[in-house]
């Protein structure tokens, strides 16, 4: 169905439009108290209007910032839109970030108003209150346990709503005027990039940028008001925010918030979304779950599963792309759909998925092919916070495992000599908030945005991203070294959770490996290997050889690609602990912080390259509840077999 938003150029205007055109349709649902509580567009608009008037009554004016801390739920999106009605700028923040990480954005944008979800978030804000004098008003949504809190700044969301309803009753016109004042060029929202390097930067995005990109992408896939999306990723991440805020406001589809983080799987199965987005690590975790659960299945189911997955591997992707497939295979696949893939999609809650995107990181080819083979229309997407996400999308029919598709209409792509990708599109961000110097670096005078990603076009015009520019290095003998590419190939094995490859400016490639505790523990139990914990399992000979097998299979693949054949992994060690964002080794979206790791584990790196076969390590570790403790271990270093290009043919 076509998108009928006509001239609305700001999100509040879109809301008013939807409330009028499709007032009775569900706008947003949340699983609470056992059932899915539903707000229609009309109800959602009323709540936003009341909230906006409430904020106005509390002195929130045009240009102010509103911090939003908390998980996906109707009230966080209502608050976003309410701020925008008054010309304010919502700033969503990661709900699982530590208190210290929240201090910078609040100081940077002198945020005076904040909406927090529950006691946990309020406590964080109260903890950093001394460093953020500007913070005047904190509205909490869930009153649980905060009965004795007496701080002046605290007020409950409901009282704000009540206040709003009174002010609106007194002066209904006031809000309509404020909304009319809004224009496409105003700032719609500000997202703080987790930034793999240095302090986070506030990316300022205008209404026009977000709406335009959302509309283009929606047209491409024919999204409409009947579609359903599950909002389960942190709202502060542009990847989630675009799908659960920008696009629903453009197309009018319904977003659903799960009851809690633990119940995402069951809620997804209940809702059965038609439009799905998941970063590679979520898809990877899902695949590990599938393989572990299948390992425990009865032998009949396992045989059935393996047989039909073989067929799917061969034929599934082609069928999805509409390529010609033999009659026998087509029938077999149909039978497989009835017995295995249909139920599998159903249990994962993806039976009704029409379009599924994956973005944020490069995805392992086999992982990508797995989902397409069981009939899920998974496609690659490329974009970033600064470009309002949509830069390249793989159209139906031209889906490939290792590319991200052609540019979306309205986007121009260009390469610098060092193969850095430059983008110009209406969706570009206005600036980095109060950071002119970074803005100048990223956006040059002709309006080109320097992405910092390296890549090239493949024959049929699809963009291929290989790595971050500053990470792409060269081995001593000049062969191209793309750590991300190697790491993704390694991470595709369900036993390996995270890998960090080193080789830039060195003679050979070495790697740190983090195995997936759940998968390997299950594997160890089946072989009767007793273990006490992660560190103990890491030192086991059987586990080391298991990881070596995976590495050798990756080396065999690499040997087939001539220009990077030489960057096969020669030596590796298994880290004594899981890399963790709390220790600063990963970003909030679990991307590897390579430079930080390199200097923190300097000793290990030297041991790898120094030819030693084991190294002692003493490391300080931060536990979940903030306590720190020392973890010491002796890490064994092993060599992995390297294949010469022609030998690889035989081994593969």
């Amino acid at each position, binding site marked *: 169905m076509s998108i009928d938003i006509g001239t609305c150029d700001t999100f509040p205007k879109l809301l008013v439009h939807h409330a009028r055109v499709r007032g009775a349709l569900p706008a947003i649902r949340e699983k*609470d*108290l*056992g059932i899915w509580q539903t707000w229609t567009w009309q109800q959602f608009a009323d709540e936003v209007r009341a909230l906006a008037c409430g904020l106005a009554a509390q002195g929130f004016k045009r240009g102010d910032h509103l911090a939003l801390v908390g998980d996906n739920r109707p009230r966080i999106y209502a608050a976003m839109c309410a701020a925008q009605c008054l010309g304010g700028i919502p700033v969503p923040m990661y709900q699982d970030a530590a208190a210290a990480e929240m201090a910078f954005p609040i100081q940077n944008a002198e945020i005076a108003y904040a909406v927090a979800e529950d006691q946990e978030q309020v406590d964080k804000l109260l903890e950093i209150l001394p460093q953020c004098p500007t913070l005047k008003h904190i509205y909490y949504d869930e009153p649980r*346990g905060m*009965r004795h809190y007496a701080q002046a700044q605290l007020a409950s969301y409901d009282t704000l709503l009540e206040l709003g309803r009174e002010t609106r009753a007194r002066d209904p016109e006031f809000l309509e005027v404020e909304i009319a004042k809004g224009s496409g060029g105003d700032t719609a929202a500000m997202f703080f990039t987790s930034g793999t390097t240095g302090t986070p930067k506030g990316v300022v995005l205008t209404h026009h940028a977000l709406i335009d990109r959302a509309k283009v992408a929606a047209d491409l896939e024919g999204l409409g008001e009947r579609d359903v999306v599950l909002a389960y990723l942190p709202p502060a991440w542009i990847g989630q925010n675009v799908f659960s805020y920008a696009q629903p406001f453009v197309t009018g589809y319904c977003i659903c918030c799960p*009851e809690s983080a633990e*119940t995402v799987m069951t809620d997804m199965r209940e809702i059965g979304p038609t439009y799905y987005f998941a970063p590679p690590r979520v898809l990877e975790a899902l695949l590990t779950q599938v393989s572990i659960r299948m390992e425990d299945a009865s032998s009949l189911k396992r045989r059935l599963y393996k047989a039909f997955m073989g067929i799917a591997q061969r034929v599934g992707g082609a069928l999805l792309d509409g390529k010609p497939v033999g009659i026998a295979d087509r029938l077999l696949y149909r039978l497989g759909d009835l017995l295995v893939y249909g139920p599998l999609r159903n249990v994962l809650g993806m039976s009704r998925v029409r379009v599924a995107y994956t973005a944020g990181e490069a995805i392992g080819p086999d992982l990508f092919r797995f989902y397409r083979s069981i009939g899920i229309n998974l496609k690659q997407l490329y974009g970033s916070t600064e470009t309002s996400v949509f830069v390249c999308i793989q159209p139906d029919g031209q889906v490939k495992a290792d590319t991200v598709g052609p540019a979306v209409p309205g986007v121009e792509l260009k390469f610098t000599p060092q193969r850095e990708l430059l983008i110009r599109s209406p969706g570009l961000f206005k600036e980095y908030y109060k950071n002119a110097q970074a803005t100048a670096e990223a956006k040059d005078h002709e309006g080109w945005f320097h992405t910092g990603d390296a890549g090239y076009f493949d024959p049929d015009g699809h963009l291929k991203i290989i790595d971050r520019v500053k990470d792409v290095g060269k081995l001593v003998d000049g062969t191209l070294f793309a750590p991300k590419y190697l790491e993704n190939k390694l991470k595709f094995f369900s036993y390996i959770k995270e890998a960090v490859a080193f080789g830039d400016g060195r003679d050979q490639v070495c790697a740190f490996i983090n195995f997936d505790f759940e998968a390997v523990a299950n594997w160890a139990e089946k072989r009767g290997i007793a273990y006490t914990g992660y560190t103990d399992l890491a030192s086991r000979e059987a586990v080391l050889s298991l990881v070596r097998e995976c590495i050798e299979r990756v080396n065999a693949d690499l040997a087939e690609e001539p220009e990077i054949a030489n960057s096969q992994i020669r030596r590796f060690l298994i880290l004594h602990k899981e890399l963790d964002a709390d220790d600063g080794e990963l970003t909030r979206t679990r991307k590897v912080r390579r430079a930080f790791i390199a200097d923190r584990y300097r000793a290990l790196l030297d041991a790898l390259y120094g030819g030693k076969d084991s190294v002692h390590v003493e490391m300080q570790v931060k536990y979940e509840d903030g306590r720190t403790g020392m973890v010491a271990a002796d890490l064994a270093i092993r060599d992995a077999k390297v294949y010469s290009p022609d030998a690889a043919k035989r081994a593969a």
Partner: protein
Amino acid sequence: MNRAQQIGDKILSVEGVSLAFGGVKALQEVSFDVREHEIRAIIGPNGAGKSSMLNVLNGVYHPQQGTIKLRANGAWKEFHDMDSHEAASLGIARTFQNIALFKGMTVLDNVMTGRNLKMRCSFLEQAIWVGRARREELEHRRAVEEVIDFLEIQHIRKTPVGKLPYGLQKRVELARALAAEPTLLLLDEPMSGMNLEEKQDMCRFVLDVNDHYGTTVVLIEHDMGVVMDISDRVVVLDYGRKIGDGTPEEVRANQAVIDAYLGVAH
């Protein structure tokens, strides 16, 4: 700990209660009172008569002497030999030392049975189901969902109770007692057999219950740390006699109590 709910006047008064099983004197002239919105702890070494006191309060045992007066909706009701069924209708709910849940039913059904006193429909209407019975059932389901959400047991709503670990079963039992929206909640060692983390959770729940619903709580507990933290006033029993009554600090200093616990020869 500042009190959200102000402690009101007396709601329950126990005067001179004695209870004996054949020769064994479980309780001898015990009298104490409990005020509204208060968390009242009953402590004492094993076999001091704590559980029997609780069983007298909710009508399972009938004392030979002494009277128990309860202020239910305004009027002082004196109940001498009242059976447990009447006690429940007066708004007294309780949990059991060793879990008394209905193994054959799911968590949701168990908690719903807590509300049976509030259901008005006759069995005939319930058989026909459509109409009044259905409305009533859904209303009560809504109220039960509040309690389930309050005690954070949404994820086990549909599992049979028999399958749950010990800590969760205790929480389901608390949910069932709460579902009856009692004026007086009797907790019989709610934290026995729990690890530290579960104990902290349960303490938080008991405090929240007192906070949020304003229920008066009578708590039997061994863990002195817990008693000292969350109770407003404490009664100390030893060999069926009351040897201490007052705030946790007073009781801690009381020599008789220390003797009782450290085992001075009687």
